[in-house]
């Protein structure tokens, strides 16, 4: 194995020397075979030392480097750029976070800190020799399309936000309702399936009667809740019942609402198929107040298990009461019921008064809505996780509040779980904006530290295929596993679980990890 290593020791201004014997570290480094140059600099984070480092690289024909400094995040990209310009691959630079792993946490144990620092240096030297250059490939996005599934409040907001970034938006609306939004709008349409990955999706969509292929760089899921498919005994007993959302819309569009109006927090008071949703409250209150203002004579009842008006909407509760809206609290025992033999009458036991009430109603609305059944198809198509309630699941918080675990796929509004209009809208804007930016980057980068299968070793046991959260592995034509590099995020889960050790993760191969560990534990170089 031939290598020309450069070792750079950063003093982090004064911190390192304050605790560590830099001379000793330099000695260890310079006495290691294949180390061509050892440089100690005041602070690698300011550019001024760069030039000399790079000069050395050129003079001594360095091909890889060990840098003892701080956390990668904190080291200026300038260093890596400089190295790359000097012809050293970014994956050939081994960073050692001496500052955060040795200097800071072991201030009062000089001897131990020194020992640890030396071990870390040696481990890095052992590792750097085993590193291999890796290339990141770039793929142009074929379209600037942001496909938004669902033209509800969230969807529209998303479309506007995305369009503003310059992306080309395509709204898919499952119903026939006409909406105003930038870009193309397809009614009676939904996503059936998808091929590809963030940046270059190939969606197959149903638009009206025909099925079409549609290229998309990013997808925003704003499919909303299952407005149309109400579950639960009350819904069964009263076919005319509507979701609160629809009641709201028809009020807004000035329709006459047949009184008396009852708003029940859930069509399934037993909570078997559907739990009462907290969001119900903001909605109910806003709606009933609106209605009461328009037609004060309409009798309105709000039947609920638990008063859950958040934040300022709590005050709306008061307003509603003052406007004469009747609030009836029930518990599971006295849950509201509708006798099929006398439809149009709801019986419920008032929890606080203890009396049994039967209320005639002209309109019945439910505040809680089940998750959208379409979510299943969408999730399957785009390979994203779902919640137990059947909503679309958001990814790690670190990826952002409207991102799914999959790059290029965003989710907003009630598609996750029912949300008030306002919040849904804000999320829509956020998701739209993020999708837009993603698309306007114009290309995706992939590869680098990703997994790769050694076909000879693979038993095609499917373990990787089942384990990968991104569904990057698949069984290829040679009936051996292969990894779709564009999908691989480089987490290495498949590598860790492969029973035949047929998969390796570049830059974190078993040998590299094992060797690093061995040397860290005092094994000799």
């Amino acid at each position, binding site marked *: 194995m031939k290598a020309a290593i450069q070792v750079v020791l950063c003093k982090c201004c004064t911190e390192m020397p304050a605790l560590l014997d830099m001379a000793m570290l330099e000695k260890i480094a310079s006495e290691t075979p294949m180390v061509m140059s050892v440089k100690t600099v005041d602070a690698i984070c300011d550019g001024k030392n760069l030039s000399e480092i790079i000069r050395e690289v050129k003079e001594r024909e360095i091909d890889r480097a060990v840098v003892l400094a701080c956390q990668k995040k*904190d080291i200026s990209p300038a260093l890596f750029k400089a190295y790359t310009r000097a012809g050293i691959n970014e994956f050939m630079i081994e960073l050692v976070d001496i500052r955060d792993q040795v200097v800071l946490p072991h201030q009062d144990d000089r001897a131990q800190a020194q020992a640890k620092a030396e071990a870390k240096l040696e481990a890095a030297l052992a590792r750097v020799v085993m590193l291999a250059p890796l290339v990141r490939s770039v793929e142009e996005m074929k379209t600037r399309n942001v496909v938004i599934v669902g033209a509800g409040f969230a969807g529209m907001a998303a479309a506007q936000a995305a369009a503003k970034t310059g992306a080309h938006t395509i709204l898919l609306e499952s119903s026939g309702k006409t909406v105003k939004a930038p870009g193309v709008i397809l009614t009676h349409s939904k996503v059936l399936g998808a091929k590809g990955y963030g940046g270059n999706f190939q969606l197959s969509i149903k638009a009206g009667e025909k099925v079409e292929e549609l290229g998309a760089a990013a997808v925003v899921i704003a499919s909303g809740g299952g407005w149309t498919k109400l579950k639960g005994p009350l819904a069964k007993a009263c076919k005319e019942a509507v979701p609160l959302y629809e009641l709201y819309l028809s009020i807004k569009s000035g329709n006459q609402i047949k009184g008396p109006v009852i708003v029940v927090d859930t069509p399934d008071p037993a909570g078997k198929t559907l739990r009462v949703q907290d969001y119900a409250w903001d909605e109910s209150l806003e709606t009933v107040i609106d209605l009461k203002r328009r037609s004060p004579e309409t009798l309105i009842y709000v039947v609920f298990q638990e008063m859950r008006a958040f934040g300022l909407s709590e005050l709306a509760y008061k307003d509603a009461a003052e406007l004469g809206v009747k609030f009836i609290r029930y518990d599971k025992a006295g849950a509201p019921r509708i006798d099929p033999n006398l439809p149009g009458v709801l019986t419920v036991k008032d929890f606080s008064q203890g009396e049994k009430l039967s209320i005639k109603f002209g309109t019945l609305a439910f505040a809680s809505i089940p998750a959208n059944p379409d979510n299943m198809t969408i999730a399957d198509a785009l390979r994203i996780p779902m919640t137990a309630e059947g909503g679309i699941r958001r990814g790690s918080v670190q990826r952002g509040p409207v991102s799914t675990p999959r790059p290029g796929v965003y989710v907003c509004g009630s598609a996750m779980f029912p949300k008030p209009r306002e919040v849904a809208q804000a*999320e829509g804007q956020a998701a*739209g904006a993020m999708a837009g930016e993603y698309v306007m980057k114009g290309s995706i980068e992939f590869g680098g530290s990703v997994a790769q299968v050694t076909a000879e070793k693979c038993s095609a046991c499917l373990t990787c295929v089942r384990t990968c959260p991104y569904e990057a592995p698949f069984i290829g034509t040679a009936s051996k596993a292969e990894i779709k590099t564009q999908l691989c995020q480089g987490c290495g889960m498949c590598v860790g679980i492969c029973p035949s050790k047929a998969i390796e993760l570049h830059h974190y191969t078993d040998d590299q990890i094992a060797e690093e560990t061995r040397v860290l534990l005092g094994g000799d170089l």
Partner: protein
Amino acid sequence: MTAAKSLVDRGTRVVLVERTESLGGMARELTCKGLVECRNCGVCFAIDRASDVLKDPMAEVMLLSEVSSVQGDGNGHAVKIKVSPRYVTDDCIGCGKCVEVCPVDGKAIHPPKGGGQPRIHWIDKSKCLHFKRAKCDKCASVCPTKAVDYEDRARNVTRNVGAIIYATGIDPIDACETSRLGCGTYPDVISSVDAERILNQNGRLLRPSDGRAPKKIAVVQCVGSRSVKVGVEYCSKFCCKYATKISQLLIDLDPEVNLDFYFMDLRTLYEPQDEFKSWAKGKKTVKLIRSMPAVVSKGKDGKLLLRSSGDVDSEIAELEYDLIVLSVGMRPSGAASNIAKVLAIGQDKFGFASTNRDLEGKGVFVCGAVAGPMDIEETAVRAIAIAARVEDAKEAKQ
């Protein structure tokens, strides 16, 4: 902060003016609520954003600073900013040696609050002896990186900006304002914010009085908020959320702990509340009590007595606790009003800022919990949305 982040991501220059010594707002002092499983409190998101912004060359962060005046119109604002001295340079590695040696009681040199970023200490001039007769320089002398700089001076800077985002956030209501429940009288009655701070610092909740681990804890909801008395009639929205999560964390940390959870209505913010209820059902050591406790009095051997009307329409009960956590509400940040005036931002009777289209047209945006109580997640979402709007405004002008 999130707004700033997503703006710089779009390549917009951002000036971030923060009144306190570090970024992170409320979230700094909050603790992660997870032990093995994430409970989605969003705190890590907030803190990560803070460090992102600090690292970003496009963002200029001014700490210990306040906007003194703003002039301008739709085409831009000249913002005067007063930056107070920190007396500690960026060389600080946050080792805390200086704090140890500081002779002032209550210390004059402090680390940044909780998880605040950057991890640089700061000196409170009003307390520091160096600026009094006794030219104390203990901190300077122990500092391994010579980061203490008594010569640091206040600066007035002016920045010309295209848009202003007003995100001054919220402050916790001082639990003691409701003189009830012995807050202030008994050391072991603490506010939820104190609880979070303690948890955040050492990962476990100990009794302030004797530093022992409490075995029986009461968590009381809606203290301060939903109370006309304090002038906070509204519900602060996320107290239930974090209180339930803290309770879960406390049990995770020590399954032996007995925890009683007092509440009026349980409003665990857009998460099926049954989750918490069923969780509590599953735990023998957790009790949910629908009641608003009335009085706290001193019990024997350092315990506290909490009197409440038990569960709904049952008789008065008086129970013993080692520690009582008052889950306090929030109100718009104190610093809000004066800047708001300068920017002509409307406010409701609670001091929550409101904005409107033509104000946004002028390049003034309101963002975050200062516009109304909301949790970290919602704040983040709205921030990204606002950032997008700011961008449009910018493009609209060009």
